[in-house]
């Protein structure tokens, strides 16, 4: 009886966004009287970091500090339209809408600054730290608070902008089958190293090495954490999770977390991850989506590593000890 070691790999191309009946997302930005910029969205941050990314994009495009940007996703009934945060689409779709809104708001901001400073708006620049000033003359400028107050109380202006990113519906060419369903494709590869216990059928994931090409990592630390968390979920799908372990027989299904198997903090694999950036032409600052794909490539990589370790090819998830043992029994000619 032994622990058999194996290595497997798998690659994935993952679409950013999907072909709906047209796939729009909209964003509105306005400045408050005190020079904060509020991005109104119906897009939802469910932990993936949407608010952080949108604030980064708006700050970069507006030319104001990140801390001056607030993201309001409070109400999908009253906010500007978003199709939703799914299909790894939010960074791309909503990010593009935020850029468009921020450009329009920046134009008004620079015009008001020009009126206040009695100069041409084309002669102005933003320092990214909260001041608009004449190019080459940092002392001739105006701070964001003063500027916003002037816009509201002197000029009667709203420093605001509208943004929409609209991916049109793509019909299928009946002759060729050709269509344009997504906006970009991200790529990933995982190499898994496992040990299989040939007596119990248990699989131990020792190490996952992941490489992701995601256009541009808008926030590298968050992208890295998404990869780590997704890889954990990939291990979980590959080896543990199911609501119907003997489908189509629905018996023995879990009814709560106690019976729904997942790897715990003691079952972690060693993880190494790298990000490669090849900016997408149509992505906001080159970004593609890295939402859902992080759970994908670990699964076939682990299945391949199990095959490499013990010769058993399991084509159903999860790859339970029972399935591995039945495969080993078939190979060894021992009764199941």
């Amino acid at each position, binding site marked *: 009886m032994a622990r058999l070691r194996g290595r497997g790999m798998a690659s994935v191309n993952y679409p950013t966004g999907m072909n709906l009946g047209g796939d729009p997302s909209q964003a509105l930005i306005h400045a408050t009287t005190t020079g904060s910029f509020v991005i109104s969205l119906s897009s939802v941050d469910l932990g993936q970091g949407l608010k952080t990314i949108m604030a980064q994009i708006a700050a970069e495009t507006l030319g104001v500090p990140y801390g001056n940007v607030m993201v309001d996703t409070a109400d999908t009934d009253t906010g500007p339209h978003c199709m939703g945060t799914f299909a790894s689409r939010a960074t791309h779709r909503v990010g593009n809408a935020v850029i468009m809104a921020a450009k329009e708001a920046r134009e008004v901001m620079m015009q008001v600054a020009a009126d206040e400073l009695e100069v041409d708006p084309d002669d102005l620049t933003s320092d990214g730290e909260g001041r608009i000033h004449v190019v080459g003359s940092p002392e001739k400028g105006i701070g964001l608070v003063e500027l916003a107050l002037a816009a509201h109380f002197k000029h009667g202006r709203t420093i605001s902008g509208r943004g929409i990113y609209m991916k049109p519906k793509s019909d299928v060419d009946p002759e060729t089958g050709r269509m344009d369903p997504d906006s970009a494709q991200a790529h990933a590869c995982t190499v898994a190293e496992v040990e299989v216990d040939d007596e119990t059928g248990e699989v131990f994931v020792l190490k996952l090495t992941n490489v992701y090409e995601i256009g541009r990592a808008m926030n590298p630390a968050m992208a890295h954490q998404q990869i780590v968390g997704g890889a954990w*979920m990939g291990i979980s799908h590959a080896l543990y999770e199911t609501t119907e372990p003997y489908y189509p027989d629905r018996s023995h299904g879990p009814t709560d977390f106690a019976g729904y198997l997942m790897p715990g903090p003691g079952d972690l694999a060693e*993880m190494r991850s790298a990000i490669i950036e090849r900016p997408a032409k149509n992505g906001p600052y080159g970004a593609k989506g890295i939402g859902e794909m992080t759970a994908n490539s670990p699964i076939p990589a682990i299945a391949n590593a199990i095959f490499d370790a013990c010769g058993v090819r399991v084509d159903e998830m999860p790859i339970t000890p029972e399935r591995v043992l039945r495969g080993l029994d078939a190979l060894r000619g021992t009764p199941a």
Partner: protein
Amino acid sequence: MRPSIVSLEVNGSHRDFLVQPGTTLLAALREALGLTATRKGCETGSCGACTVILDGEPVMSCLCLVEPLDGARVETLEGVATGPDELHPLQQAFIDGFATQCGFCTAGMIMAAKALLARNPSPCREDVIVAISGNVCRCTGYAAIIDAILEAAADLRAARPSRAA
């Protein structure tokens, strides 16, 4: 069945409140006291999202009936921050180490970790894993959480060498 008055010390403050028989500590915290940082997850004791510290021990508040706890001392996430503008080293380490994504498990994780550091200021990695083994996280893959707790333990030892967390 008549409601009764229960007294608890919650995050250092004395609190009296009226509860119906069978009310859990979790329900009392969230509904009677309005302390909603403590999350209601599975309500069967298998996810750990509702973990609070009861008389120094981490417990799943969904499994504790509150009436027999009269006079007990309860600590929730609302009481963890060191000051109005100063986070506890555990909270800071969770932020700095990206140890939270959707945030649903975070309150329970931090309370389980705080109880651990109170009884063991110098935990090894295995100690941390055991301490949070009753807490489910669905986003992070746990590694960042384990690292953050070890980081906070080191920070606390450096700041207060003679005192427990």
